[in-house]
Each structure stands twice: as C-alpha cells, then as structure tokens.
C-alpha cells in the first residue's frame, strides 16, 4: 500500500517537471534505496543509500523544541542543545570521579542561590558568599575538563557539518563523516544522548547570552520579529523565542536542563536518519549495538499546549530606532497537518516567490516601493497553527505607510480577482523543482527525511506533500486568502527610522 502511494506521487513529480524515459527509473531506484526500522526501545531509523562518494551524513531529530518548554524555562531546549556537545563521563574529562562531585555541589549551590534570589528580602551577604563559592567550584571543576573533546574527536577523524539547531518544534543534531567511520558516529551519538554531562554549564550560559545579543538585542530585524511573534500569539507557546526570554535564561540551572532532557530525550522521541555510502544491514546492527541499550523511560506526560484563541482585532506594533525601516505583518494560519496548509504555501509563493510573483512585480519592479519582499507560511514552526508572514524592506525614502498601502492593494486585488491557473501552476513547478534540487546532498536528505519521519511519522511525507499540493485549485487559494488574509487576523510590526518624516 505504501509502495503504491509513493509511486503515485513519484509519477506526479515526473509529469510536472520531467518528461521522457529514464527519470522514472531514477525515482524507482530512489524508493528502493530507503530502509527503515525501529529498535525495541522505540527509537526510529531511516537509512538512505547513496553510493556516489564514500561519505555519509547523520541526523538525530528530537521531537521537542522551545514549544515544549515549561513556564519560566524558555530557552532551555536550546541551552540543552549547546550542552549536548560537552561530553559524557568518558569524553571530555581527565578525571570523572573528581569532577562529578564538584558538578553536583555546583548544582546544589546554584539551587540555593536561586532560592535566595527569589526570597522577599534576600540576604545579600549570604548571596555573595554563595556566588563566590560557585565561582570557586567552577574553577576547580574546570581543571578536569577537556574542552570540546566531543567535537575534537569527530573533527579529527574527518567529521564535517558538525552542528545542531533548535527550533520551536524540534531539536536536530547533524554531522558528516567519511563513510567507513559510520561506527564512530554511532558511538559518539549514543554516548551523548544516553549519558550527557552538564559540565561548563555556567560558562556556556554566557555563550548563549552572547548568542542572544547577536541575534536579537543588537539585531534590529531580529528584535522586530521577536516582538511581532510575541504579540501575534497571546497564549500559545510559539510566542516565546527559541533563544529564550532574558530573565528565564539568566535563571536557568543545570537541573532545568536535566529535567527537559529526561522528559524529551527518550529513544521513542528520537529519529535518526543516515544518508550516504552505507549498508543498511550494517546500520541496523550498529544501531542495535549502540542504541539498543538506551533505556526507554516511562512514557512522559506531555503538557497540554495552550491553544491560541481566535484573534478579534488587528494588532499593531511600531518601534522607532536609529536603524533603517522594515515592515512585517503576520496572519494566524494553520499547522502543516491542516488541509489548508498547501494552499497557503502556494499563496505565499504566488505573492512573493520569484520575479513573476505579484508583490515582486508590483512593489519591487513596477512601483519601486520595496527593495525586498518575501512571504512564507509556517513561522515560527508548523507543528501547531503557525503564522503566514509578509516581510518587506522599503526603498530609500519610501515611507512605511506607502509601502503598506501597496501591499494592501495587492492583497485586496487577490481577494477580489483570485489567482489564475497559470500562476498557480508556476508555483507548483517551483515546489517540485525545489524538492528535486534538495535530493542532491546527503545532509539535506537526512535532515528532511528525519524531520518527516520524526514529526509526522513517515519519511514519505517529503514526497506525499506534492500530492497534497497538486490538489490545490485556484478556488482553494482564493478561499484561504479570504479566510486567513484579513485584518482581524493580523499583527503588523513596523520598524521606523527616527528621521522618517524628514526623509519623506
């Protein structure tokens, strides 16, 4: 049954973009090159054979992101991602038995500091004493640390693409190695997922705070988007930035990381994808050997996620700064699983993907109001109802009001006239081509397959999405435009230059 499904969608893929013989053969071969299996503890594996070069990419997809963070702990999913590079009892230390009690003592001292800080009249002397103690412990524990040993081992063996990313929906770890060193990845990844050590925690928190300064506090666009998102969502946790709110971040301790780890880093919540010059049987043996022992903890209680109530009036945010102006608007839309998602995806592209798109033609080319314009559906994540965002940068000397009116006029035209089948076909072709071009790299394949399998339960979703998209009609696009792209559903964020009046 599944096989039929994939072949059907493969044919669709062919019809639109590839004519002539030979291409079908290629896609058939692709289907035959994917194998999947689960371990008894629930961990899922997808192996994509690609014997083009003796290399392979490895991705671990953890089905937990900032949306899963408990109240007051924003940023903990991302801090954990950083901490996952700190090693294990065996990797990253010169003497674990000396280091371990120091780390435990630090946790205790930090817990007391936090207690004291939250007390009504904190004893300042006592606080200072504890902070000094924590600092002394940090130095002492540091003597045993072999910094970056985890990364060093992988890189020394030729590992590249070593990195990780945290989003609202998920956390993903990645690495590429010469294919004959696949076992090294299994070894390292299983050790760190099974038994991570939160060493160098307080220093790493400083690193994350610097990351926040770069991405948000010192970045005008980053700040604008963060404020817009928090305003658009009044209740759903998508309102929290993945990097974390500053006071939450400052307050985080190793125990918070441990809690989040225990709740979400379970085998049943992790999906691995391997793509490259590997043998699937061998991958299965290695998976059993290295991850088979990983203990499946009790099924965790997933917190109820607050649903976003329906928005009832337009929300507006205007910030005046020394920076150049920018404009964003966001409409509440739907989760990827919702049947309206593909139509909204098509709509965003009809509006702003490529030089034939409506907003580009009108606002960039014809009226020259915007230097840049983009639209995308699925921010900040797409597991839950997401945002449909339009982002624009005005040309020099163009006021934001004028830019906004220009956007408004195009959206109005869209709602009145709808879209024609030719422009819809064009974006469908673009989506199919994007997919084909994405099949070109081991890392890209591993990431998209891991995400589809981990988040939606089937790697075939990478392809069956085309099936859903193919069904979108011009009428459907018009319908979603009317039901989602409307003022009462909108949040507008404007970054206004302090001299805007003078430049106009």
């Amino acid at each position, binding site marked *: 049954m599944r096989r039929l499904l994939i072949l059907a969608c493969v044919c669709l893929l062919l019809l639109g973009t590839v004519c002539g013989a030979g291409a079908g053969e290629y896609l058939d071969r692709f289907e035959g090159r994917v194998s999947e299996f689960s371990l008894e503890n629930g961990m899922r594996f997808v192996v994509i054979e690609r014997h083009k070069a003796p*290399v392979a990419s490895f991705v671990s997809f953890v089905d937990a992101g900032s949306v899963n963070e408990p109240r007051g702990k924003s940023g903990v999913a991302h801090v954990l991602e950083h901490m996952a590079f700190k090693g294990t009892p065996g990797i990253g230390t010169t003497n674990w038995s000396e280091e371990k009690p120091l780390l435990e003592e630090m946790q205790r001292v930090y817990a007391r500091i936090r207690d004291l800080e939250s007390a009504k009249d904190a004893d300042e002397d006592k606080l200072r004493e504890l902070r000094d103690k924590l600092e002394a412990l940090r130095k002492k524990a540091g003597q045993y640390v072999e910094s970056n*040993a985890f990364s060093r081992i992988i890189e020394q063996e030729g590992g590249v693409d070593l990195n990780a990313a945290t989003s609202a929906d998920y956390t993903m770890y990645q690495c590429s190695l010469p294919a004959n060193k696949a076992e090294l990845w299994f070894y390292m990844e299983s050790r760190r997922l099974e038994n991570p050590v939160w060493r160098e925690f307080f220093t790493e928190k400083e690193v994350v705070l610097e990351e926040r300064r770069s991405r948000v506090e*010192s970045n005008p666009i980053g700040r604008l988007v963060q404020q817009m998102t928090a305003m658009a969502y009044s209740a759903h946790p998508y309102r929290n930035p993945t990097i974390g709110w500053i006071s939450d971040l400052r307050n985080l301790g190793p125990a918070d990381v441990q809690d989040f780890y225990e709740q979400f880093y379970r085998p049943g919540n992790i999906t691995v994808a391997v793509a490259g010059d590997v043998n699937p049987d061998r991958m299965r043996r290695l998976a059993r050997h290295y991850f088979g022992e990983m203990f499946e903890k009790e099924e965790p209680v997933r917190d109820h996620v607050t649903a976003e109530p329906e928005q009832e009036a337009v929300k507006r945010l205007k910030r005046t700064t020394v920076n150049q102006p920018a404009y964003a608007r966001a409409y509440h839309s739907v989760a990827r699983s919702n049947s309206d998602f593909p139509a909204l995806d098509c709509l965003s592209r009809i509006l702003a993907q490529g030089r034939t798109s409506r907003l580009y033609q009108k606002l960039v080319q014809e009226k020259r109001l915007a230097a840049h314009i983009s639209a995308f559906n699925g921010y900040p994540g797409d597991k839950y109802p997401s945002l449909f965002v339009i982002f624009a940068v005005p040309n020099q000397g163009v006021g934001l009001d004028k830019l906004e009116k220009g956007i408004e006029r195009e959206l109005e035209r869209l709602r009145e006239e709808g879209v024609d089948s030719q422009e819809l076909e064009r974006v469908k072709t*673009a989506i199919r081509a994007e997919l084909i071009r994405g099949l070109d790299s081991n890392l890209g394949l591993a990431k998209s397959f891991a995400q589809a399998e981990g988040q939606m339960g089937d790697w075939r979703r990478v392809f069956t999405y085309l099936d859903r998209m193919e069904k979108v009609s011009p009428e459907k696009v018009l319908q979603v435009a009317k039901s989602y792209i409307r003022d009462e559903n909108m949040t507008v964020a404007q970054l206004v230059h302090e001299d805007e009046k003078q430049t106009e």
Partner: protein
Amino acid sequence: MRIWRRIAGSGTGIVVLGLLLVGLLTACAQSPPGPENPGNLRFERSVSWPEYNVRTFQLDNGVRFFLLEDHELPLIDMQVTVRSGAIEVPEGKEGVTRIVADAMRSGGSEEYPGDKLNALLENRAAEMGFSFSLGSGSASLNCLKEDFPRLLPVFMDVLQNPRFPRDKIALAEQQLRTSISRRNDEQRDIAVRKYKKLIYGNDSVYARVPQYETVEAISREDLVRFQEQAVRAGNLYVGLVGDFDADRMEERLREAFSKVKAGRDELEFPRVKYSYERSVHLVDKPNVNQTYILMGHIGDLRKNPDYAELQVLNEVLSGGFSGRLFRVIRTQRGLAYSVFGRYGCNIDYPGMFFVGVRTKSKTTLEAIRAVEEELKAVRSEGVAADEVRRAKDRFLNSLVFSYDTPRKVLQRRMHYAYKGMDWDSFEELIGEVKDVDRRDVERVAQEYLHPEKMKILLVGNKDELQDELSAMEEEVQEIELSSAEPSSRQSAIIR
C-alpha cells in the same frame, strides 16, 4: 605520500584518488581519539573512489570549457566564470558591476526582455543569474535537462546582447542606493567594510565601495562598455555539471559559443603598501549591547612558499569547533558565541590576517586581551606536537569532502584554470600539509603573526564602552559614520 605525488603528477587529467583515500582513512584508525577510545574502533577500508573525468576543450576564439557528467538528477548546471570584476571599474564609478549584473538579468535582451525572460524561466523552475566580485564575474543557468536546449540560446542572447533598458537601470540604481543607506544597520557590515579600509588603505581598490555620488555618476554607456569588455571569448571559462552526454554537449556548446567575439582582459592587481603599526579604532553604533571586534594585519599571497604551513597554523588557531580561539574565547571563558579568524592568502593580492569576536560591551577589553594572549602564546610558548597532529588530521581526514560531489571537483578545476594555477594545485597542497610539523608551525607563527602590531577595530556602543575605552593604553581613533540620509552631504564621511 610518495604514491600520491606520483598520481598527482601524472597529469592525465583524470583525478584518481582511490589509493590516496584508502591510505588516509586507514591511517586515522591508528590514532585513538581522546581518553575514552571509542570502543577501539577499527575503521574498515573505504569503498572505491569515484574517478571524475573532466572534459576540457577550447574554441579558436578562446572560450574554455570544463564538462563533467553527473546523472544522479535530471538537472544541468552551467557556471560561466568571466575574466572581469570590480577591479576594472574606474574610480568614481563604483557600483557599475552591481548595476550591470542586476540590469542584465532584469532587462534581458531584445528578443527576451525582462518580463518574457522571467516567465520563460520560472515556468520551468529554471534559474539564471549574473554577478561580479572584485576579481571575477559569474553567469549561470540551472535548469532541468530537457529545458537546456531551449534555454541555452536565451542565456547566450542575454549574456551577449543585454538590452539595458532605462527603467531597469533606474531600478538597479535605486536598489543600490537603498543598500548604501542600509549598510550601517548591521555591525558586521560596518566592521568588514571599515577593516578593509584600515588594512588596504582608505582609497585602495581593495576597499572601495559604491557611494551615492558614484552611483549618480554611472551612465548607461558605462554599463554597455563594461559588459562589452567583459563578455569576450578569451574571458569565458564555461563549466557544466549534470545529466548530459559530454559528446553531444560539446557539440552544442561549440556551436553556441563560436560567435562570441574574440578578446581577452588581463586584470591588474595593484601592489599594497602596508606598514605594521598598532592602532585602535572605534565606530560608534548606538542601540547595540555587543562589540564587533576585528583585529589583525595584512596577510600574504597564495604563492607564498609557506602556504601549507600557514594553513596548518590556521587550523591550530581556528579550525572547526576545536581550534584554540574557539576553545579559549568561547568554551572556556564564555566571552563570545561567535569567534573566528584566519591568516588569509589571496591569489592576486595580499589577503588579511584577522581574528573576529562579538562580545558584550563590558567584556570588550577582556576579549581583546584574551585574543592577544593566545596569539602571543603561539609565538612565545609554541604549539604542542599533538595539537599540530590533530590539526593535520582534521584537514587530511576531511579531504574526502573536497571530492564528494562532481560540482566541487569541477569548480576547483575551473578556479585554478581561471587563476592560472596548476590544475592539481590542491593535491600539491595536500602533499605539503602532510610534511608540516610542529617546528614549521612555530616558525610561520613567528614570521607572519605580529600580535603587538595589530589594527584593532571596534564597532560598538560608545556610551556603554566608556570604561573600556578609557582603560585602553593607546589612543582610540574614532571613525565617523554618517546616518543614512540621501544626498551628497554625507558622502565625504561615509567613506
């Protein structure tokens, strides 16, 4: 090593790497990584290495071709490197390359004007683009293989006969003015621009950028002249990778490029006058709470005989997540999320040596000191043999990723041809890196790094930096940035 030299020197035009790879990969198994040896892993031999047979040929008019078949996906990717670049733009006309590139694509040709071109391409999910850097130009076409015969003549027409319509020129100019007005928004943009001026000189061809008045001074004739000069047969290096038959493709390309008019440019890269001198510079950027620091001095040329040693030094200092700077500045001291650096060696003109750190305002001085200490330590205390071995392992063991796609192999091959270097220069480098030892690294650190004489550029919030600045030993020279209003009023300062 000896085996490698023999293969590399054979000059068959076929990159044969199987033997080399097996040698490298098995070699690593001998070095148990870290205190916890990952299960005494023994790595099996790698599967055989693909041989990439790059087909090269040249037309009588001078166009050079590099073809590599890759049948995995039904796509064809064509990249034309053009011997041209911003280096050829006369003083006072900075910005010509941007406008030429933008207007070629948006204006199209007589037969394929912009709107028609856009529809033609996007109906087929094809991509066409033009761009210029300082020392080269690029024209590209990426499409499904069955669209290539239809789109190649379109590409050739736009490349050779761009229409340069007035309205698209005006559009490109306005976009360029907008980007000028916005280039002081991000610390990184400011830092990179100003640091080049500090290293190469305020008016150096290597550091100049478009200004409002240079954009104003550009006429349509400047664009036409630039395009005509650039698109000549001897300037074109045409690379194709993808799902085609090389014989038939060669025929097609010979035909398509035979009518390109002859001629060739020799790009001139002026010498750089540089004196090593310590100085500290500040660009005030209100509204931020982090300082973007760049510190360093001039670098050198690719042809430097110590190039391989310098690459190992780069690895020791800032390779991957385990280089020294990352370890000390980020992991151990928590001073930054972003820390990077390298001793740069360009092929045509000297590169730059720089270390970059982004740190909160109040640890600016601490971060500068920490970087200085590390650079001084490399010189005074040297490096551990182990550290050098690890750095070399990182480089050598990851080499397979320099050959893992046909595209990479083709691009490298074209790059060397374009720059007039031996086709196997990279393989040569590999051999040299293997011979580098601890003493070599220490020697080049002594010879090429001058931590006492660095130019230090801070882009940060002056109000927040008062204590830091007053604690500096040397005078801090402030670089003025104007705000972004249009007109000539600020042009004198924004440079």
